[in-house]
Structure formats: structure tokens, C-alpha cells
């Protein structure tokens, strides 16, 4: 794993109306097979992608939000949500899905995947990446 690159996928758009959110998620799931170091960031309208209890019946498109719950199975467990973006939209972490993963190095204990970070912290996270892909 020493030559694994650090990938950050940045999600900035609302889940429906454009294909960006779903495409990003699919790229993440495909990329996870290559055992890289993967993180996800949600900011701007992208924070809506993680809102719980989504219902797309009236939109006539597939509700893909349950798929975020599978990220833990794919060893994607660093999910950063920008604090300022949540606040600007009147959201808190309680409005988001509860995403977890099982920590292999800690007797498979269930742990939270989502971390709320400030814009300044997110900038540092971005700085530390090898590759940043923006959707």
C-alpha cells in the first residue's frame, strides 16, 4: 500500500438534476477496487447528496442515496462535510445519513465515517492529496 495515491473526490452539486453526484459515486466505487487511499468531500450544494430519507418518486429518477451506505464495505471511510456549507443551508449533521464502517484494526468496531470540517480544515485536507477530482 506504500505506493497508494491519495485521492479526494469533491462533490459540490445537488444530487438530482445533473448527473454529477451519481457519476462521482460510481467513479468512487469503481476506483475503490484499486486499493488507493480514498476520501470524499461534500461542500456547497453537494451536502444535499448525503441528506437522509431522500424520496425521488415525484422526480421519476432512481434514488441512489442508499448506495452511500455501501461505501464502508468498499473501505471508503473518510467522508468530510464542510461545516459552512451545512450551516448556509440550515442543515446539521443530524440531517445527514449515518454512515459507518467497520475498523479492521480495531476488532471490526463500527465507527462513523462522516467528519464535519471547516473550510480551512478542508483546504488542508485538499493540500495533502495527490489527486483531487471535482464533481
Amino acid at each position, binding site marked *: 500500500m506504500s505506493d497508494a495515491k491519495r485521492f479526494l473526490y469533491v462533490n459540490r452539486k445537488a444530487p438530482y438534476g445533473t448527473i454529477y453526484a451519481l457519476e462521482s459515486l460510481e467513479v468512487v*466505487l469503481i476506483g475503490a477496487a484499486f486499493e488507493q487511499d480514498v476520501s470524499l468531500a461534500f461542500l456547497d450544494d453537494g451536502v444535499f447528496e448525503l441528506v437522509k430519507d431522500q424520496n425521488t418518486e415525484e422526480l421519476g429518477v432512481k434514488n441512489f442515496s442508499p448506495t452511500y*451506505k*455501501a461505501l464502508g464495505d*468498499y473501505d471508503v471511510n473518510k467522508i468530510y462535510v464542510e461545516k459552512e456549507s451545512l450551516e448556509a443551508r440550515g442543515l446539521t449533521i443530524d440531517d445527514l445519513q449515518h454512515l459507518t464502517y467497520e475498523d479492521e484494526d480495531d476488532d471490526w468496531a463500527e465507527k462513523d465515517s462522516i467528519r464535519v470540517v471547516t473550510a480551512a480544515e478542508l483546504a488542508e485536507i485538499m493540500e495533502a492529496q495527490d489527486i483531487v477530482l471535482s464533481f
Partner: protein
Amino acid sequence: MGELNVGGKTVAVDEEGYLENRDEWDMDIAKAIAEAEGLEMTDNHWEVVNFLREYYDEYQIAPAVRVLTKAIGKKLGKDKGNSKYLYELFPYGPAKQACKIAGLPKPTGCV
């Protein structure tokens, strides 16, 4: 796009034989797809197929092989959660072939 006829019922399938509408799936269709693939469904096959359908209901995706293997191991025991066991059941790939029989779309990332 093609069609599959099973016991008087016709269902739409894509060019690779995956069901267009997974709600049309039933066990007879599964058996017919398996037969076309040269497989005879045993309890062990059904176990994996049913697991995939449950996984899809919960997560809206068909899991990658690595994820499937891990999840099967967790649910059905370590002796089943390995690729040797799964490939013996589904020689053309547990995710790809078992998903087809389960009436699910081709797994994301499978080319």
C-alpha cells in the same frame, strides 16, 4: 435488447442478457438464465443469488466481487466467503454471473 421467454411469460433483457426490469424476476426466470449459462441451480447458488437481491434492495447497487466475498463470509461463514468457493459456483465471475441470474443490473465497474 432482446427477450427471454419463460413458461409463457416474456421479459425484456439487454444485449448481454441482464433483465431490463428487476421487478419481473422470479425463480423460474432465474433458472432459465442459469440454464442458458450452463449452470444448474443448487441451494448454494440460491444462497448467493438471494444474498445479492437483498444487498441490492438495501444499497441499490450490485456489490463488487471483493465486497461480495467479504459480505458473504460475514453472513454465511468463512468457508463460503472466499473467491474459490464463489467461482466454483459461478465460473464466469460471481458478481457478473450471479447478478444476471438474480435479475440485477451488471455490477458497477464490471466491464
